[in-house]
């Protein structure tokens, strides 16, 4: 299972350079639009990076950690794009719109932090096609619940595999934030925010299979000029 999913193919085939720059510019743009609770995206990124030892002459992450960080980066790309597109669609209202704004800003901050941490080793942002789920509130919430629960299980599965204490400290601080998001989206969707006493981890294979089954990730990003526009709102 899992080995040759869309996600893995994507991870294996991307061309790195250029996309980094593009993603960075897009994030800057997204963030220059607003401040969030007095905390700018740059500030959030700085906190993460400080925690991960970046800027303090930390040793370069090991190959294992780079692989895990890139895997986390793709999940963060997925979430960040999803919330950004939902916000732009204008389909969300009330508490859900507020939550999407807050959570979206956080996911974009996570992306930004991972890009800084990985530098030239970062994988490129895939193209996403969310197939209309960002254009209707209930569909948005259902998908948000799935993404956040998935992210919690994914970080939990990888945390014990990380080699660097600095990277681990940053990862656990993100892991619990994803759990807060999951509970929040569940509460807004009207289902129990905390079902079990123990949250179970998921392996990369399991996560890849679930993500592939959504067909949200376009297998060969940016290959054709005729691709569907990413934002339809």
């Amino acid at each position: 299972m899992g080995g040759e999913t869309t996600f893995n193919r994507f991870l294996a085939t991307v061309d790195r350079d250029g996309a980094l720059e593009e993603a960075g510019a897009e994030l800057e743009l997204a963030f220059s639009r607003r401040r969030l609770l007095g905390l700018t995206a740059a500030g959030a990124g700085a906190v993460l990076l400080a925690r991960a030892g970046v800027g303090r002459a930390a040793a370069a992450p090991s190959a294992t950690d780079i692989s895990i960080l890139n895997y986390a980066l793709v999940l963060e790309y997925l979430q960040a794009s999803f919330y950004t597109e939902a916000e732009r669609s204008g389909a969300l209202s009330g508490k859900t719109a507020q939550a999407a704004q807050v959570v979206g800003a956080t996911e974009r901050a996570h992306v930004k932090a991972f890009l800084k941490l990985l530098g030239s080793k970062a994988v490129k942002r895939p193209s996403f096609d969310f197939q209309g789920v960002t254009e209707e509130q209930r569909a948005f919430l259902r998908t948000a619940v799935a993404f956040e629960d998935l992210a919690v299980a994914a970080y939990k599965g990888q945390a014990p595999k990380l080699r660097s204490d600095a990277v681990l400290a940053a990862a656990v601080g993100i892991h619990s934030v994803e759990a807060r998001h999951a509970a929040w989206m569940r509460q807004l969707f009207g289902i129990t925010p905390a079902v079990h006493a123990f949250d179970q981890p998921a392996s990369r294979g399991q996560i890849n299979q679930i993500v592939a089954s959504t067909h949200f990730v376009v297998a060969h990003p940016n290959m054709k000029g005729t691709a569907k526009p990413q934002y339809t709102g």
Partner: protein
Amino acid sequence: MIVAAGAGAVSASPLFRRLLSGGSAEAASKAEDARILQLVLQLEYTQVAFYQQALRDAGLGGELREFARTALGHERKHLAVITQALGAKAGPKPTFAFGARTRSPDAFRKTAIELEDIAVAGYNGQATNLTKGTLAAAAEIVSVEARHAAWVRALGGAVAAPDPVDEPMTAAQVVAGLQKIGLRTS
């Protein structure tokens, strides 16, 4: 490093002395795991006692009551696995004085947010000190504490996940936080 040196605010019970002794920059080990489990035991004891008493005395209704009942059920299970993991080394059940914190829905909600945030920060703060096996087990608990924290925040109409990353706490900070809420020692 599980504690800052010379944690002045911490009371001098034998349990806490044992908990807070030594432990600067120790590598993860079974012994270190056991010391950290004593810390999270205090956390889980406090949470169980807090939710129990609030369900009795705070006049909780509606979804806030449902939250308290659900959280209590989870914390009891956490307490059970930690007690089991420690075996004979598990410290005695502490005593508590929550005062007004368990006497009204509003005070309950505010304290529950504080307590769940301490739990998240406490577990996160120990992540790099744990052996990988114990870390995996702790990770199954910490995200449930984070879910509780977000849930009870949402019930008050607050932003349920205000920060992009959760800041860790040291063991000394956790103990001081629990004592502020109502943890007393026998």
